[in-house]
């Protein structure tokens, strides 16, 4: 299959884009990455491919656009069967989708509230974030991955956001490992996968991104 068949409109720091890249890497799909300048000016292609939200990631497969990262990963799963990222049993699939939805609704925003606030509001934000982590740690239990023995959908959706954890930790002055050691072990386990290590950027660089975001937003 030609690389031009699969194009990803991307931003290197976006955990939503990282999810899609990890999924493509897991399936061994060659793709072309096109970087979008989200602050300088979005490309015509992005605006026409995602007229509803004008956001990355957008996956273009043979010219047809797919939007919203969890939906894109679902599409990748259904289009390229091997290796499977979701279990085959309907009940297990529904539970995986539930946790994907939970991570989507809660994790990134909870982390974002940490660097966007100060003082008491920040204390509350840190508490909320750790509660979300503890919930996820409970779901993980003693399994190697959220998918059980194998790395799967929920792992992909969640590991991408962990690239921003160092930034949350530095701004909030806390360590994820102190609160959820099993989850931290899972992060390290995932980072040992070639597909994940290839995609996830250096968390120090993400920290710099957040510093710049704060400057741009007029926060000190």
């Amino acid at each position, binding site marked *: 299959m030609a690389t031009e068949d699969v194009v990803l409109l991307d931003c290197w720091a976006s955990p939503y884009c990282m999810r899609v890249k990890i999924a493509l890497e897991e399936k061994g799909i060659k793709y072309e990455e096109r970087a979008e300048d989200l602050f300088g000016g979005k490309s015509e292609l992005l605006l026409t491919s995602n007229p*509803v939200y004008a956001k990355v990631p957008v996956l273009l*497969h043979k010219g*047809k656009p*797919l*939007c*919203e990262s969890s*939906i*894109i990963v*679902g*599409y990748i799963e*259904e*289009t390229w069967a091997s290796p499977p990222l979701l279990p085959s049993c*309907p*009940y297990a*699939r*529904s*539970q995986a*989708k*539930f946790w994907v*939805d*939970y991570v989507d609704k809660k994790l990134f925003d909870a982390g974002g509230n940490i660097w966007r606030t100060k003082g008491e509001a920040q204390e509350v934000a840190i508490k909320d974030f750790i509660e979300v982590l503890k*919930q996820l740690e409970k779901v993980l239990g003693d399994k190697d991955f959220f998918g059980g023995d194998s790395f799967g959908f929920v792992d992909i959706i969640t590991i991408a956001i962990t690239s921003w954890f160092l930034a949350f930790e530095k701004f909030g002055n806390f360590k994820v490992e102190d609160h959820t050691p099993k989850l931290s072990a899972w992060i390290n386990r995932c980072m040992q996968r070639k597909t994940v290590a290839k995609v996830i950027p250096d968390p120090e660089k993400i920290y710099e991104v957040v510093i710049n975001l704060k400057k741009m937003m007029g926060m000190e």
Partner: protein
Amino acid sequence: MADEVVLLDYWASMFGMRARVALAEKGVKYEYREEDLRNKIKSQLLLQMNPVHKKIPVLIHNGKPVCESLIIVQYIDEVWRDKAPLLPSESEPYQKAHSRFWADFIDKKLYDACSKIWSTKGEEREAAKKDFIEILKQLEGQLGDKPYFEGEKFGFLDIALITFYCWFHAFETCGNFSIEAECPKLIAWAKRCMQRESVSRSLADEKKVYELVLGVQKMLGVE
């Protein structure tokens, strides 16, 4: 072994209705259990089966809970695969992704826009009406001239949206506007869906929904 299917629900919830429509489409017998949400009382069973969000609907299949209405509808479609498929077949991942995108859009945008119509006043209400119509127009654009969102057959995306229809009367009355005047094709689609027994039996009575809204407005001090 016979399937044991229980639905924890609230009569007026458009999210709960989605599960009801899906179960009816598949001809699945189930026990309906009403949660007393009007008085903010959540049963032990609900708290046990959905400890994370504590919300309805919850589908309990042979004792195991499934939560979040769109996930429930997909689960129902996968388990009772033989009758009335709701998402396009396995060979059409693009169409499936398209339906999921617009169902997700409905969840992200529509509920908030419509609750503001009846829970606010004055300028805020006018802004909410404008947003609501814009969202409906985008959905009407997706429908085009097709009988249903996915083409000839009633399916997932139709279910995601049709359950809001029984609330339209309340929105129109509170907001003093006609949805049909703004989105005639969408209303034609809604009436088409209402001809299906699975839909007409699952949706709440629009007059009762309006009475509910009036009651909540009184409580909130909004008229």
